[in-house]
C-alpha cells in the first residue's frame, strides 16, 4: 500500500471524516417511493458496497450521490458539504457506469483525457497523466483505438481510467462487473481491489452479487425495497444478520418462523410453526425480542449431520435424506424432518461414500449458530 | 498449418478443413463481381454510349401518317383570353363539332410543348406573330388552302402583309394589340404619358413596378424612349438601351408577363408594363386601373390561328377558322373578352363605347409611331440575348 494510501486510510472513531453522508434521504418517482429516508455514512478510503436485489433502490442511491438525481427529501453531503443543489459536474465524484458510457466518437486516449481537457490543462500535463492512467489499468497499448473496437473487459478498464484520472474524492461504481463473464469478473475483482489499495480512494460500489460485495468491501449496506436493512463488515453481515432478509440474501440459510416460549441466559426458547422446539441466540439487532413472533436462521454449513443420533439437549433433530447435490468441493443435503420442515445442510466432501435417499439422518446445531431475528415486515 | 502431434489431432483436422474452405471460396466465390469492377465497367460503357456520335435529331417532330382522329372533335391550343364557354358552345351548335381547348400563357412554352411531342395533338394553335416565323422555321405548319376559308377579305390590309409569314400563307390573324403601361390611378396622378415616366419617377416607384419578361419588348420600349427604332440593329443604340435599363434595374420588382395583375389589384404594384389584352381586361374589372399607350409609340403585336402540319382533324380546323372570321362572332367575342379584332366587318358591328375605347383601339397618331417587332439577323438577335442575360442575371 502506498504511503498516501495509508494516510488516507487512517481514521479514528472520534474524528472520523465521512466522505459521503446521506441524512434521511428519500426519492419518490411518480408517487412511488424508491428510496425511503435512508441514513448512510461512508468513511474516507473505504471500499463501500451497496448490495441488494433488483429494484431495491441501490442504483438510485448511487445516482443521488453522483448528482444525477435530486433527493425528494433529506440531505446529501460530500466531504461535509451539502450538495443537494450542486450539479454533477461540480461534485468531486466520478462514476464508472454499468454500460461504461464511453464516447464512441472519441479514441480511448481522448476518452480518458476528457475530464482533464475540460479543465484546460496544458497538453504535456494531459499527455503524461493519460499515459499514467492507461498504464494503471493496463490499457497503455490501446490509446488510439475506438471503444467499439474493444472487448467488454477492456472498455471497463478504460471507463475506470477515465474516472480515476480526475482524482475524485469518491469513485462510484454502478454494477461495474455485471456484463463480464465469470473468469473475467474474478480477474477484475482482484484488479479493483488492488487499485483501491494502491490509490487509497473512497470506492462506493453498487452490486447485486453478494460474493463480489463480500470479497471486496470494507463495509456493506444491504438494501431492500428502498430501506437499508443493515450496514456492517462482511463478516458481521454474514455471521450476525440483523433481519431475516439479510440472513436470507447473503449466503444460504434455513429460516424457521415461530413464537417465543421463554428466556434463559443469553438464549431464548421457541416453538416453530411446525412444532419444533429450538434454542436460539438473539441477534444484537437492537430490537428487543421480548415476546411474540420470531424468525430463526441456521446456516447450512453450521449443521452437523450424522447417521447416528446426537446426545444433546437442544437443536438435535431426526430426519430423512431427500436430495443430494454434489458440487465437487462440498455436498448439499436436503433433509426432511418429521415436522415437515426441509433443511439444507452443507458439508465438505471428504469421502466418496454418500448416503442414499431416505436414509435416516441426525442433525445438530449449536445455540450460537441458531440466530433469532425479529420478524420485520418484508 | 496441420499439427502432427497425436493429442493435437483435433486441431490438425480443423485447420485442414479451414484450408479447404478457404480454397473453396477462392474457386467458387459467391460474389464474382467486385464493386470496383462493376463501377468501372458501368462508367466505361456509359461514356462510350454517350460519346458515340449516333447522329440522332434533337426534338424531331415526326410526321404521323394517316392519323385523322375523331371526326367531330377539335383540339385547340390557345391563350386563355381568346375563348370562353359561350364561344365554344356556339361553335358546337353551328357545326356539331365538340371543342377541347388547352391553354398556354407563353409562346416559348407553346413551342416547347409542340416540339416535345404534342405537335400531332392539336388542329388549331394560336401563336403570336413572331412565333409564326419560328414555327415556319421548324417546319411545323401547314400551308392554308384559301379555297376552304371564307371571310379573309374582312381582315384589315395591314394585317394581311405579314413580315413573319409572307403572303399570310400559313396563318389567319385573330387579334391585335399594343404594349403599354397599366397603372393604379389612385396612386399615380397625373397619369403617365410615355415610357420615360418610369425613369423620371424611379425613386418614387422603386419596388412597385414590373417590366415584361420579354427581351425585344423591353429593349424595344427603351430604344423608343431614346428615340430609336423598336427594331434597331445598331450596336451603339442597343448598348445605350442596355445602359439605360441598368439604371432602372434596381427599381424593378420583377420581370413578368402577367403576374403583375394580382399584385396591381392588391396594391403591391403601382405600375406594370403589359400587353393591351391583359391591361384592358384588368381595367374593365377595376375602374381604378387604367391602361395607357405611350405617346412616343409602342410595339404592335398580333396573334393568329395556324394549323399544325400533323393536325388530326383538318376539316374541323377550317370550320373553326371560318367560324372565327364571321363578323358577328368576331365582334361579340371582342365585346366579351376585350381583345381588338383585325376584322373590319366585325369592327363596324361593335357598339360605340367599344369602338371608341382608346385602350383597345388606339388613335392613328400613336399607331403611326408604333411598329411590330420583327425577326432580326442572327448577330443582332444574339446581341440582344447577351444584354438581356446580363441584365436579368445580375
Amino acid at each position: 500500500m502506498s504511503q498516501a494510501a495509508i494516510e488516507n486510510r487512517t481514521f479514528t472513531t472520534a474524528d472520523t471524516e465521512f466522505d459521503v453522508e446521506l441524512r434521511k434521504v428519500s426519492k419518490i418517482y411518480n408517487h412511488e417511493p424508491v428510496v425511503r429516508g435512508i441514513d448512510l455514512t461512508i468513511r474516507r478510503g473505504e471500499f463501500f458496497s451497496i448490495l441488494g436485489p433488483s429494484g431495491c433502490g441501490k442504483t438510485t442511491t448511487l445516482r443521488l450521490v453522483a448528482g444525477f438525481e435530486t433527493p425528494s427529501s433529506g440531505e446529501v453531503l460530500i466531504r461535509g458539504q451539502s450538495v443537494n443543489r450542486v450539479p454533477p459536474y461540480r461534485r468531486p465524484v466520478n462514476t464508472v457506469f454499468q454500460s461504461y458510457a464511453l464516447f464512441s466518437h472519441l479514441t480511448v486516449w481522448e476518452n480518458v483525457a476528457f475530464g482533464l481537457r475540460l479543465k484546460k490543462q496544458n497538453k504535456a500535463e494531459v499527455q503524461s497523466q493519460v499515459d499514467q492512467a492507461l498504464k494503471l489499468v493496463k490499457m497503455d497499448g490501446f490509446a488510439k483505438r475506438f471503444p467499439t473496437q474493444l472487448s467488454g473487459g477492456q472498455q471497463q478498464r478504460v471507463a475506470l481510467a477515465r474516472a480515476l484520472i480526475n482524482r475524485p474524492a469518491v469513485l462510484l461504481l454502478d454494477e461495474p462487473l455485471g456484463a463480464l463473464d465469470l473468469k473475467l469478473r474474478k480477474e477484475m475483482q482482484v484488479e479493483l481491489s488492488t487499485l483501491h489499495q494502491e490509490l487509497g480512494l473512497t470506492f462506493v460500489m453498487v452490486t447485486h452479487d453478494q460474493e463480489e460485495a463480500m470479497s471486496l468491501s470494507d463495509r456493506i449496506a444491504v438494501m431492500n425495497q428502498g430501506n437499508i436493512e443493515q450496514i456492517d463488515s462482511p463478516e458481521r453481515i454474514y455471521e450476525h444478520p440483523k433481519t431475516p432478509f439479510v440472513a436470507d440474501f447473503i449466503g444460504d440459510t434455513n429460516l424457521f418462523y415461530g413464537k417465543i416460549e421463554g428466556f434463559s441466559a443469553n438464549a431464548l426458547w421457541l416453538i416453530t410453526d411446525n412444532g419444533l422446539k429450538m434454542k436460539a441466540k438473539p441477534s444484537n439487532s437492537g430490537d428487543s425480542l421480548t415476546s411474540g413472533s420470531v424468525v430463526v436462521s441456521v446456516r447450512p454449513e453450521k449443521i452437523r449431520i450424522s447417521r447416528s443420533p446426537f446426545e444433546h439437549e437442544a437443536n438435535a433433530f431426526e430426519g430423512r435424506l431427500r436430495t443430494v447435490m454434489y458440487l465437487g468441493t462440498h455436498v448439499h443435503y436436503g433433509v426432511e424432518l418429521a415436522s415437515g420442515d426441509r433443511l439444507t445442510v452443507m458439508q465438505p466432501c471428504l469421502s466418496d461414500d454418500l448416503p442414499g435417499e431416505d436414509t435416516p439422518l441426525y442433525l445438530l446445531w449449536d445455540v450460537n449458530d441458531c440466530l433469532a431475528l425479529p420478524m420485520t415486515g418484508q | 498449418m496441420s499439427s502432427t502431434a497425436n493429442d493435437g489431432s483435433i486441431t490438425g483436422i480443423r485447420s485442414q478443413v479451414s484450408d479447404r474452405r478457404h480454397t473453396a471460396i477462392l474457386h467458387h466465390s459467391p460474389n464474382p463481381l467486385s464493386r470496383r469492377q462493376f463501377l468501372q465497367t458501368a462508367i466505361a460503357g456509359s461514356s462510350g454510349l454517350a460519346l458515340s456520335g449516333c447522329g440522332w435529331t434533337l426534338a424531331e417532330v415526326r410526321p404521323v401518317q394517316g392519323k385523322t382522329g375523331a371526326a367531330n372533335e377539335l383540339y385547340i391550343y390557345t391563350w386563355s383570353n381568346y375563348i370562353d364557354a359561350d364561344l365554344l358552345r356556339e361553335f358546337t351548335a353551328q357545326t356539331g363539332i365538340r371543342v377541347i381547348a388547352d391553354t398556354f400563357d407563353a409562346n416559348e412554352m407553346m413551342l416547347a410543348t409542340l416540339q416535345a411531342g404534342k405537335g400531332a395533338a392539336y388542329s388549331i394553335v394560336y401563336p403570336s406573330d413572331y412565333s409564326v416565323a419560328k414555327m415556319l422555321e421548324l417546319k411545323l405548319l401547314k400551308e392554308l388552302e384559301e379555297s376552304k376559308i371564307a371571310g379573309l377579305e374582312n381582315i384589315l390590309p395591314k394585317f394581311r402583309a405579314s413580315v413573319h409569314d409572307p403572303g399570310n400563307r400559313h396563318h389567319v390573324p385573330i387579334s391585335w394589340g399594343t404594349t403599354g403601361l397599366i397603372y393604379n390611378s389612385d396612386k399615380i396622378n397625373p397619369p403617365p404619358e410615355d415610357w420615360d415616366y418610369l425613369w423620371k419617377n424611379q425613386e418614387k416607384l422603386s419596388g412597385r413596378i414590373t417590366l415584361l419578361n420579354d427581351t425585344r419588348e423591353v429593349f424595344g420600349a427603351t430604344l423608343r424612349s431614346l428615340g430609336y427604332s423598336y427594331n434597331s440593329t445598331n450596336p451603339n443604340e442597343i448598348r445605350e438601351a442596355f445602359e439605360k435599363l441598368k439604371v432602372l434595374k434596381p427599381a424593378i420588382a420583377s420581370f413578368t408577363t402577367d403576374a403583375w395583375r394580382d399584385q396591381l389589384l392588391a396594391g403591391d404594384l403601382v405600375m406594370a408594363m403589359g400587353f393591351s389584352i391583359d391591361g384592358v381586361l384588368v381595367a374593365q374589372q377595376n375602374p381604378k386601373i387604367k391602361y395607357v399607350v405611350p405617346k412616343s409609340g409602342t410595339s404592335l403585336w398580333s396573334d393568329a390561328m395556324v394549323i399544325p402540319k400533323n393536325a388530326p382533324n383538318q376539316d374541323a380546323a377550317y370550320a373553326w377558322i371560318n367560324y372565327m372570321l364571321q363578323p358577328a362572332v368576331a365582334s361579340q367575342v371582342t365585346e366579351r373578352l376585350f381583345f381588338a379584332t383585325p376584322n373590319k366587318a366585325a369592327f363596324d358591328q361593335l357598339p360605340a363605347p367599344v369602338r371608341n375605347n382608346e385602350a383597345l383601339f388606339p388613335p392613328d397618331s400613336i399607331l403611326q409611331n408604333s411598329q411590330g417587332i420583327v425577326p432580326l439577323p442572327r448577330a443582332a438577335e444574339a446581341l440582344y440575348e447577351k444584354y438581356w442575360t446580363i441584365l436579368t442575371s445580375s
Partner: protein
Amino acid sequence: MTSPPAPSETSSKSLPQWLEPIALLAPAGIWLGLLLVIPTLLIFQLSLVPGIRPGQVVNPSGLENYLQIFQAIEIKPATATEPAVTSFVYLKVIWRSLSFAIGTTFMCLLLGFPVAYFIAITAPKNWRNLLLVGFVLPLWTSSLLRSYAWITILRPTGVLNSILTAVGLPALNLLNRPPAVYIGMTYSLLPYMVLILYASLEKLDRRLLEAAADLGATPIQAFWKVTVPQVLPGIAAGSLLVFITSIGDFVDPELLGGASSMTLARLIYNQFLGASQNWGFGSALSMIVVLAVSISIALLLKYGDRSSANL
C-alpha cells in the same frame, strides 16, 4: 469428419449464384436505368454539342458548352473609346444558386436543431409523435401553394406588414428580394431537417450526457463535445438533403425573388424553354447540377453514417 463438397460438385447442382441478386434488383434497376441513367446520358451527350437547337442533328463534338459557363459574356464596343461590357454572368448565377442553397441549409440547421432537440429529448414521450406530426404537416400541402402563401404574407401590403404597421413598427420590403427566397425555401425544407435530426437525436444515448456531466462538463460543454459529435451523421444527412433540394429549387426564387434572383434552375429553363433555345448549353448547365448533387451524395455516404462504419 466429412469434408465439404468439392467446388465443382456444388456449382453444377444449383443456379448460378449471381442470378439471385439480379432478380431482386431487376425491377428497380430497370426503372432507374430507363428513367434516370439513360436520360442523364442523353443530356450528357447533348452537352457536348455546342449550340445545338431542336431540329438539328446530335453529334458530340467538344466541350465548348462547358467552357462557356466559365467565360464571361463579352460585348465589344463599336467605338474605341467605350469600354467593353464584360460580365461573368453564368458564374454569378451559379454562385447565387449556391448562396441560396447554403444559406437555406444553414437556416434550417439553426432553426431545426432546437426543435428536433426539444421533441427528441425534452418533450415527454407521449407527446413526441403529436409534435412531430404537427411540425411535418406543412409538407402535406403543395409546395406551390406554400410559395403563394408566402407571397400573401410578405407583400408590401401583405399580412406581415399589416401586423408591423399596426404595432407601430416600420414596414418591411421583403418580397421580390433575396430575403423572401430564403424565407420561402427554409420554410419548405425545415420539416425534412427536423425529421432527420430527430431520428438522430432520438438515438442519442443519454447516459453519455450523464457521463460527460460526471466528468465535469457543463450542459453547454456536454452539448458541443458529446451531443453534436454523436448526432453528426444526422446533421450531415439533413444538411445535404436540404442542400441538394434547394440547389434545384425553381419555384421559390421565381415567385419570391424578383428581378435579381436568377438561379441555375431558371437559367436552365431559359435555355430550353426560353428564347435562346440553346439546348446544348442548357445540358451543360444541367450536368453541373448533376455534378454538385453527386459530390454531395458522395460526401453523405462517407460522413453520414459513421455509426455503422465504426461498428
